[in-house]
């Protein structure tokens, strides 16, 4: 018999896995920093501030894309695992297998890029991995793709374990998604907590995305080994972008679990599963899967209905985010006597950045706009908002919370403010991040293409300002990661 209460397990049940999660976040923080430095190098090279050979530039670009997407997924999955573990017992061995396969994949990807010369971008758009123009061989491409396969298998293991446990405890997929409440037959007090609903939804769509990704990865690998085996390029692109879109969205939707679980400690009010919350997550589940054609709006051989669906769903995907998660947080914040620290500030920033970033993304999801904005710097402009100021902010917030000081229970209302070094670091991260993404958006509006190793002098101003803003972000992120590492080391002694 299943139970559908929000009661948490005792800390003893999930505490032992906290070390693995903390290690993951340390690795994630370090890789985020390294990838940010890669990003700074690219912007400095585009601005003519340093000389980087185009072959190396595109290798760095490939590493930056794969590294950032992978680490967003890694940190999101760590958050998912940590908080799901509060509600159902999870098998620790599965997490270690996930982490081991992830690291194996990272080794393969780095070797493929920096030893094998692979520079086919993180999107491995078929048939580019096989047609490098002499820059890299099929072996490097196969190694890169096998790295993805390894990471994908790890994620599948993790999601299957999470779904298995949630289904057993909450009465199947529908129970964990709070469908009885969503469809008007259940009571809010019987519904699973928000973390469970989010964990189930993101596990379902990420599993589907990874399975489709595995299919196109295998097809691409066979094509590399047996060139006579050809794949329809448009079908492959559909599969790649379905996988890529779902994976990066899952990263954010997994990370937001930290908001649902942590912020109530600061708000003094639980984040409950209401009917609108349950409906919103079911809508998210459908929309995340259905919206991917908005990446193919300039692929004119695509069926018109698919592109129209991509545009329409792209817009309506913003409603659950804006009207449910962001709206609820704003209402909670207005009522709360918040005791701010770095964790709370970064988690709120994460939701705000995600919400703000949806605006240029939705506009780019309109076919008429996309016709002149697609593959300009507008695109990294919008996705850097909801990654740098969204998912990464949530991940850093989770890290800060893991090593937080206990909240002062007797603090006067409004007394605990973000101050001193914390305030400076947080503001540097926000200002640097906002300036950085603004330069992308301005460049996109001025028709600067994305993914060009060499820029003309007319574009240097935005490139150089972006480099400065990137340095600000890196400085702030460095302090966040160093403080996290220092506290972990001190507590380990």
């Amino acid at each position, binding site marked *: 018999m299943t139970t559908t209460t929000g009661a948490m397990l005792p800390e003893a049940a999930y505490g032992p896995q906290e070390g693995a999660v903390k290690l993951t976040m340390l690795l994630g923080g370090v890789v985020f920093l390294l990838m940010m430095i890669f990003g700074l190098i690219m912007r400095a090279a585009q601005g003519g501030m340093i000389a980087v050979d185009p072959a190396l530039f595109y290798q760095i670009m490939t590493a930056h894309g794969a590294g950032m997407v992978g680490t967003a997924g890694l940190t999101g999955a760590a958050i998912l695992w940590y908080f799901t573990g509060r509600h159902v017992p999870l098998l620790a061995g599965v997490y270690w297998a996930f982490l081991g396969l992830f690291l194996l994949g990272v080794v393969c990807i780095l070797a493929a890029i920096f030893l094998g010369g692979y520079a086919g971008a993180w999107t491995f*758009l078929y*048939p*580019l991995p096989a047609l490098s*123009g002499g820059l890299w061989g099929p072996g490097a491409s196969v190694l890169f793709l096998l790295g993805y396969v390894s990471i994908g298998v790890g994620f599948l293991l993790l999601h299957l374990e999470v779904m298995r446990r949630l289904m057993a405890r909450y009465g199947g997929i529908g129970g964990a998604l709070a469908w009885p409440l969503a469809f008007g037959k259940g009571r809010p007090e019987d519904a699973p907590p928000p973390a469970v609903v989010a964990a189930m939804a993101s596990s379902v769509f990420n599993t589907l995305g990874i399975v489709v990704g595995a299919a196109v990865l295998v097809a691409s690998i066979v094509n590399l080994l047996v060139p006579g085996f050809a794949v329809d390029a448009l079908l492959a692109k559909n599969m790649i972008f379905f996988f890529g879109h779902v994976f990066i969205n899952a990263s954010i939707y997994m990370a937001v679990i930290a908001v649902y679980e942590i912020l109530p400690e600061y708000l003094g009010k639980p984040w409950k599963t209401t009917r*609108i919350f349950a409906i919103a997550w079911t809508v998210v589940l459908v929309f995340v899967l259905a919206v991917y054609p908005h990446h*193919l709006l300039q692929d004119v051989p695509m069926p018109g209905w698919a592109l129209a669906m991509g545009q329409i769903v792209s817009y309506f995907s913003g409603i659950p985010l804006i009207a449910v998660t*962001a709206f609820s947080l704003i209402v909670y914040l*207005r*009522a709360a006597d918040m005791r701010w620290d770095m964790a709370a500030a970064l988690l709120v920033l994460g939701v705000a950045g995600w919400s703000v970033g949806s605006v240029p993304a939705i506009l780019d999801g309109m076919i008429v706009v996309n016709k002149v904005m697609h593959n300009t710097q507008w695109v990294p402009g919008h996705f850097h908002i909801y990654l740098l100021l969204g998912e990464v902010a949530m991940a850093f917030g989770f890290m800060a919370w893991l090593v937080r000081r206990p909240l002062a229970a007797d603090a006067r*209302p409004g007394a605990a403010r973000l101050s001193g070094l914390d305030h400076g670091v947080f503001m540097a991260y926000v200002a640097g991040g906002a300036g950085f993404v603004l330069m992308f958006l301005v460049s996109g509006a001025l028709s600067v293409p994305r993914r060009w190793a060499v820029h003309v002098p007319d574009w240097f101003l935005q490139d150089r300002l972006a480099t400065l803003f990137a340095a600000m972000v890196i400085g702030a992120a460095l302090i966040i990661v160093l403080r996290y590492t220092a506290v972990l080391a001190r507590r380990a002694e």
Partner: protein
Amino acid sequence: MQLTVLAISLIVMAFIAAQFITAVRSAPGTVATGAERLRSRLIIGLAIVGLVVSAVSLARWPHAVAAKGVAAVVNVSGGQWYWEIDTAQVPLGLVVFNAQTADVTHGFGITDADGTILVQTQVIPGYVNRTQYTFEQPGTYRVVCLEYCGVAHHDMINEFEVAAR
């Protein structure tokens, strides 16, 4: 169009950011009365805006290629890393482009002399990728690649002239 899109984006982004900043700075204990009613209105309002914008922007299919009134049909072939255009000069008026690739996916983009993108289409291997543009000004136009295609992606540039009548 691009600068209008930038302006709309910045205004709406600033509005959303302001909601968060106001909430963070609000006095503790500010009780939001009627929040659920406001949420319902927000959902309905956003849905209505979405339906109207979708209907208006899709009523005339953005990828439609005209069968009549075409001033010229231009065949374009892309490859690593070049553009071949079957004519160096096209007339003013409605021009249809048939773009194909010899190898990987490219992005066929046309810019004016100032570098502003006017139109683009992905060039998918195995397909004839058709798009159109109405040229109203004579002059030199550039063809650039807007899909990453390898080490000289940024050098994949060609030009054509639009002749005066």
